[in-house]
């Protein structure tokens, strides 16, 4: 595993994906959510599952080409899920994606700092 600082960013992403997964699962099964049983929430559940897997793999790999590709895909996942959260009118989901975005930036900034050193 990479350095603690770099790992912190990755763990933010993992935490956000777990939160997003929990929120979307709750929304999917709760009739009062207004978006239960909907294709949009199902899409988010899949996206959060993929982000969780990718985050764990990145945490394990630390760096390298595969980790870089996965980080790029995670960025797309964050952007897509945040947009879905906006149209699903789910502030919790958007909040989770904000945390993921912070984690992603942290991860990137640590990497940039390391490169400078």
């Amino acid at each position, binding site marked *: 595993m990479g350095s603690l600082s770099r790992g912190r960013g990755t763990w933010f992403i993992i935490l956000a994906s777990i939160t997003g997964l929990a929120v979307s699962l709750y929304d999917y099964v709760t*009739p*009062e*959510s*207004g*978006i239960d049983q*909907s*294709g*949009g*929430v199902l*899409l988010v559940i899949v996206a959060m599952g993929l982000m969780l897997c990718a985050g764990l793999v990145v945490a394990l790999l630390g760096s390298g080409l595969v980790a870089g590709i996965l980080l790029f895909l995670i960025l797309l996942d964050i952007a897509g899920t945040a947009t*879905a959260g906006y*149209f*699903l*009118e789910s502030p919790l989901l958007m909040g989770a994606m904000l945390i993921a975005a912070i984690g992603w930036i942290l991860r990137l900034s640590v990497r940039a700092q390391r490169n400078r050193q």
Partner: protein
Amino acid sequence: MKNRFSQRACLLAAALLWPAAARAEGQDWSDFNGNAMGQKYSTASQITPANVKNLGVAWSLHTGDVSYGGAGKMPKTQWQSTPLFVNNTVYVSTPFFRIFAIEPDTGKVKWIYAAKTMSNEPNAKFRGRNRGMAYWAAANPVAGQSCQKMLYIGTVEGQLHAIDADSGQLCQGFGNHGILNVNQWNTINPKFPFELNQPPVVYKDMLVLGWAGIDSLWQASPPGSVFGLDARTGTKRWDFQTIPENMRNKIGTANVWAAMSVDVANGMVYLPVSSPENNFYGGDRLQDMPYATSVTALHADTGQVAWVRQLVHHDLWDLDTNSAPTLVNIPKDGKTIPALVQATKQGFLFVLNRLTGEPIYPIVEKPVPKSNVPGEIASATQPWVPTPAPTVGDRFPGIFKVADWAGGGQCSRDYASYRDEGRFTPPSTGGTVVMPPTAGGVEWGGGAVDPTTQTYVVNSSNLVRIYQLIARNEFNALEKKIGPAAGSPNFGSPYASRTFNFFNQWGMPCWNPPYGTLSSYDLKTGKLLWRHPFGQVQQWGFYMPESWGSVTIGGPVITKSGLIFIGASMDSRVRAVDLRTGNVLWKHLVAAPAVATPAVYTYKGRQYVLFAAGGNNLVSPRVGDQLVAFTLPN
């Protein structure tokens, strides 16, 4: 002496004020439309624009009467029932034809009456849908006798049940031990039973009852009729036929399936009359049918016609007059005019003198496009109402670029292949763009009016459908090949028909938004006060921008404090809107689109707003069984 005088004065004042106080305490919702005048207006004023943001759930009840559809199951239910609040009880009927009597402040069920009907049996052939009940109370009740207050609920097979409002038991003196077989009068082309979806309207000790049927299946189906019934016994006092006698054997419907309005003081009942069969081809009914697609005024005691105003001539678009006219007095040019506002699927608001049928705002006869279908002769002109401004525009609103792009230009290509010459372009074999179509404009919820300011509010949908006629032999071949997807057979007519929403292959509307609006008018001047997109489209759970609005079903209500309460939209939200500005002040998520018009009542000093959230698959696949009451915190 002075003291005694004061005491007497106090007693007198109390006696004078008591009925008013009792009325205020009651603030009933005793009719489908609040009152028999179709106003949907409540004098309740506890909930105001300033405090409505604090509105919360007082109680919520799930009736259990819902079908989610699916293979081999009963079709999805349509719960469009406006609850009543009367006799210190909330009453609501369900799509399984049960009546719940409920405590108004707690939601606790007092009793349930279950009408036996083929619709709530397993593998039911008919859809479970219900729009509510009627309530009648004896003017001089006999103490100790039951059925001095009665509820009426109709079933899908033409049975009208009369129930004692206190006990929930059938009233044995009505019909046959409490059930009147209205279908006994279904004698001409009885292809289907009379569906008593809409409750009767009450006039003194009478019920005035229409019925619904099945569209576009048979040309020779039951011809439209309305019955005047004794409220106590169900005895028929009169009937009114909408189709000329010499045509009844070959042409059906032009029925009254929507709510009616009553002017008790003038002894009049107002009928929104629907269109005749075949809904889209009139070559077999070229004879004048003055009551078809009209608003017709009858003398309520006799059923004799007072006046009729046809709203679409030789209707080829299924533009049924579909909501109860709103009765209101309008001060204008120094006089008070007894008026009627008839909202329509066309989006026209016909404002008429309700005693004479004469227009208060001009109705213009405009030339309209000719039919190019052999045998059809479309009317050369159609009635047009420039003022008040129609709720729907006269022309196709343009191709929605997002949908066109997403569908690879399919919207543009399809549009170019259809016939579109604006309003009242007749259906054609190649497909005609129809806006507003049968499900567009103002639906059966109709409008609401504040009778003190003559402010009229109405929700309307901007829908575009394609109407296509299919020659009989072509249809038969198509039906063999693809089954029911071929369209509606219209047996007995040279043409079957197919109508569908103008969507791209992804289900996106091909026309520009907004898809639904809420409008307010000053009836004294006919001026549009405001119009805003209303509700939100929801697809796959995603909420589309508010500026797009939503298709709506179910009407608004107005309260004295200047609020509009309305569900109606696709997004399963109920809303409170500022009557003055049209701004949404409060919204709340419910279990399904609240396509029933809400009810407003006051009980034990608290005002409640009551929504039935049952859904209708015309606006959204989501259906439900939730009855939810909102009130302010203590």
